[in-house]
């Protein structure tokens, strides 16, 4: 229902020949990678392999790395990508001095777009309702549980209404049950967006991803993606998912040894 608000078609995103160096280390050497349009691509791999660096690079954030000049990053519709990205981090990044509603609206408020268009406020309230926070609009973040805070962060990410969504371990700090609920919510609300989701949880990747990549080695490379059948969020008890989980764990174990 929320996706009706997304008037932009989500493009695919192509990265070609990316080389990133951090001091003496080469993180990526001519890495090429495509985020498929309107699909969720999940990225797993050992800590420090460069998953977050790749995400930060796509988001246009500082990586502290040197990059090659001849790399290319472009969207399939050839429109600029930097203003079509929403970002969600591991921590909720809610500002403690703002109410939940103001936190969700922060982008619009600080860009000065809120006074021009009251519609955003209504949509924020609608989104907070969709994530189950309709009774917490005026509460401060400190009054919310970890799961509720991350739900507010999800609402803030979605309110930006961008076709490309980059998520860096967004649910990793949550307990198992809260995590499952948030995965279902995210799957529903992120439909038709081009998503890159970094996670350490194979089951999360298999529930949410259309493409599940394992990143390994130094310089890091991406293997062939696993493509789970069916639409996210997939059922936990699905035997195919559980089989893929075993396969994925083996791949991750090998990646760790690289």
């Amino acid at each position, binding site marked *: 229902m929320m996706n009706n608000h997304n008037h932009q078609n989500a493009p695919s995103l192509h990265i070609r020949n990316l080389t990133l160096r951090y001091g003496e280390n080469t993180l990526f050497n001519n890495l090429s990678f495509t985020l498929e349009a309107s699909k969720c691509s999940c990225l797993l791999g050992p800590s420090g392999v460069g998953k977050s660096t790749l995400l930060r690079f796509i988001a246009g954030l500082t990586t502290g790395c040197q990059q090659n000049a001849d790399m290319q990053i472009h969207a399939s519709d050839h429109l600029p990508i930097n203003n079509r990205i929403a970002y969600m981090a591991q921590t909720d990044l809610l500002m403690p*001095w703002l109410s939940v509603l103001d936190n969700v609206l*922060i982008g619009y408020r600080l860009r000065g777009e809120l006074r021009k268009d009251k519609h955003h406020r209504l949509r924020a309230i609608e989104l907070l309702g969709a994530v189950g926070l309709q009774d917490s609009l005026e509460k401060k973040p400190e009054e919310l549980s970890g799961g509720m805070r991350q739900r507010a962060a999800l609402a803030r990410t979605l309110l930006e209404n961008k076709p490309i969504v980059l998520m860096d371990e967004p649910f990793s700090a949550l307990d198992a049950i809260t995590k499952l609920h948030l995965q279902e919510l995210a799957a529903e609300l992120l439909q038709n967006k081009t998503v890159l989701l970094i996670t350490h949880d194979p089951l999360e990747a298999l529930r949410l991803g259309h493409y599940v990549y394992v990143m390994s080695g130094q310089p890091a490379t991406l293997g062939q993606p696993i493509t789970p059948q069916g639409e996210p969020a997939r059922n936990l008890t699905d035997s195919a998912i559980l089989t893929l989980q075993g396969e994925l764990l083996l791949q991750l174990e090998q990646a760790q040894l690289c």
Partner: protein
Amino acid sequence: MLKKIIQAVIVFLSLILLWQIVVWIFKFPPYILPGPWLVLKSFQHEALLIGTQSIPTIIETLMGLLIGCLMGITAALIMVLFRPLRWWLLPILLISQAIPTFAIAPLLVIWFGYGMASKIATTVIMLFFPVTSAFYDGLSRTPTGYLDLANTMHISRWRTLWSIRIPAALPALASGIRVATAFAPIGAIIGEWVGASKGLGFLMLNANARMQIALMFACLITLVIFSLLLYFIVDKLLQLAIRWQP
């Protein structure tokens, strides 16, 4: 709250008792160490004098605190906004702290006169550095996640500073203001010791010269009560204003 008040009263009474015991045991003459009772009598007799002499000290302290905080906040913002200026401003700030306040206070009296201005200047010099340092530290340590969010949301540098970096730095600024609040009365008193015609510091010096040690103690206790009260009020106001501070 009540528990805290009771604790404070118990500490206060214990100190007075200890003081009286020391006077009893060592039999100090009143011109060396008067007992609490003598000091209380001095309070009673000189209440008007102490009251009138407190007013300039209170005004100097509050003005010094206000100007010092405003200058500290401005200096920190200048250092954050104009990074190259930081390398010019930082040595000046450090020099202002390296020179002992006692050494510079006579100069301030020559420059600003015997009135309140020189005392306010002494106070400002003493306390604007802790405010600058704390606020600058807070502004430099904005959680990177907030800045990443602002970047991906295409929020301008000024809006990020005003609406994210400054609010995020307020708890640090509050720590600086607390330190400044504790220093402020000391600054005013130092200014008054060096050269003044009124104020608690002036009264203390006079009392000391005339061996009116009980009066001196009465002034000292007045100063302590004022300092504690000021700190308590500022602390409460900061807590109310910055509710999200840890």
